[in-house]
């Protein structure tokens, strides 16, 4: 156990409920982050607002993986498939059936929950690296499935579908980008709160019990198969909603936007953010969105290599990701207060 984890475990003798900060931020910090997220768009250009929207969207997708891996201990390299299903559900509903964009989100969530839950059934027989391989196959198959001829009428085949960006409602005077940002922010906060509630509940404890010891969990009455598939379902549902939002923000869906590269990016985001620490999801998302750009700024020709070096540095310096940084920061603040 690392020093960081020990701090997480020990700092809460007086707290009654589940040591909340083990997976969330304190109330004060949360409010500061929230305020920053609400105010920031007022001062920046539309392109930056768009990037912030994508940050929230990827943050949701990383959060979803965090529930699956950090919560129930199951690996997935197939998150891009769930993201794609969510994105296409929204695109098809909006463009072929004229469904309101906001309504497509819960539909995508339900569709992806079903998809994830069903995929979880065969995955039950696999664990660890084998499960990672099975989900990898799902990720590689998805773009090809979306290109299938008989689906072309709905999916637009290789061409994909163009999605109309919604205007701000109620005659609000704000740009489409800004409206979509605030819309995404509300959805993200709601899902974040649901996720925290879930992990702190009886179901969440069942997930974590399975992660730590399946046989003991089963002896305590936890239906291991059910909760493992539920974790897949929940994770897929949230990823699907992120995919929906992504489709609306980017205004376009195409099979090759949702390759294994996306799944690996999300995995990377989870590791950089700290596995099992929910607020880290947004940090991980920032890493996978902005660090490739930074790498390109350093060297155009070798951006991939520079990215690799930066990634190595992060993993070498803070193996537990953003969570570790947060804990070190807390310790430092504590020391300064004492002096």
């Amino acid at each position, binding site marked *: 156990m690392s020093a960081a984890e020990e701090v997480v*475990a020990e700092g809460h003798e007086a707290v009654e409920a589940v*040591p909340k900060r083990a997976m969330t931020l304190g109330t004060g910090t949360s409010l500061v982050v929230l305020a920053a997220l609400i105010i920031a768009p007022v001062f920046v250009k539309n392109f930056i607002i768009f990037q912030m929207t994508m940050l929230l969207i990827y943050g949701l997708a990383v959060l979803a993986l965090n529930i699956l891996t950090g919560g129930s201990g199951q690996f997935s390299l197939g998150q891009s498939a769930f993201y794609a299903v969510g994105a296409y559900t929204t695109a098809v509903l909006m463009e072929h059936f004229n469904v309101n964009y906001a309504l497509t989100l819960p539909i995508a969530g339900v569709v992806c929950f079903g998809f994830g839950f069903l995929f979880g059934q065969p995955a039950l027989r696999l664990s660890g690296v084998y499960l990672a391989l099975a989900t990898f196959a799902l990720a590689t198959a998805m773009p090809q499935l979306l290109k299938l001829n008989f689906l072309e009428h709905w999916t637009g085949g290789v061409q994909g579908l163009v999605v109309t960006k919604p205007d701000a409602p109620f005659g609000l005077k704000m740009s489409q980008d800004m409206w979509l940002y605030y819309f995404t922010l509300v959805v993200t906060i709601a899902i974040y709160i649901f996720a925290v509630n879930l992990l702190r*509940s009886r*179901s969440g404890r069942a997930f974590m019990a399975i992660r730590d010891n399946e046989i003991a*969990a089963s*002896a305590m009455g936890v239906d291991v198969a059910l909760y493992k598939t539920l974790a897949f379902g929940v994770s897929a549902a949230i990823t699907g909603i992120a995919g929906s939002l992504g489709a609306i923000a980017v205004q376009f869906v195409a099979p090759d936007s949702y390759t294994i590269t996306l799944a690996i990016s999300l995995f990377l985001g989870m590791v950089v953010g700290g596995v099992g620490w929910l607020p880290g999801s947004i940090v991980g998302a920032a890493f996978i969105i902005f660090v490739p750009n930074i790498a390109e700024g350093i060297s155009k020709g070798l951006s991939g290599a520079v990215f690799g070096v930066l990634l190595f540095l992060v993993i070498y310096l803070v193996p537990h990701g953003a969570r570790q940084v947060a804990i070190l920061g807390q310790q430092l603040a504590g020391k300064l207060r004492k002096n």
Partner: protein
Amino acid sequence: MTQAQLAQGTSPLLAVRDVSVVFGGIVALNGISFDMHKGQILGLIGPNGAGKTTLFNCLSRLYQPSSGDILMEGASILRRPPHRIAEIGIGRTFQNVALFPNLSVMDNVRVGTHARTSSDIISDSLRLAWVRRSETDMNRKVHEILSYLDLEDVAHTTVSGLPFGTQKRVELARALAADPKILLLDEPAGGLNHEEVYVLGDLIRRIRDERHMTVLLVEHHMGLVMSIADHVVALNFGKKLAEGTPSQVQADPDVIKAYLGSKDQ
């Protein structure tokens, strides 16, 4: 003792009926039968490889007997999957401690209540009023068990950092949280020092008396079994060697030959 004797006349709480387990040609258990009565502490003894753990795993449904039946309050448990054993009142601890290492002591015990509570992921995500109420009730119960086993001080500590003896008590707390009628203890004295073993013996007796439980004790430590068990079943090579009170079993020539004689206790 008296409690157990009173119960002798009534039907058994748990009945093991002619249970055999065969692993690809090797007979691990051969026609084992015995009864457990309410309020009893039953000690299951035998040398290494006698089949104690195999029998134990049949009771917690990790193994399927090749023949025979196991009845809990008259109903067979053999068609139940492992996760539906806790709900009929069979709780267990594990030989080498099987806690959830990354969870706090309190969360470990909370998982113990899983079989006695209900919820669904939607209500849990929304933290509905009934979910909050059930969590409050559960927390009260968990605190009661923690203070009963003197674990309040470490309630919020992650279990992987605790000493082995404390982890064993956490495991006991987790099993108690499911309100079992029968507590299956798999070598609870393993890894404990001399003094800790006697404290444990007292604790097991106290749990039986104060919390009205029936205990099946699978144990290597003869001193512990002989001092707290009301009834002892001795196994060797998958067969029942002897059964009776501790003194009867201790005096049984077969048992002495197979087990006690080979040990200098």
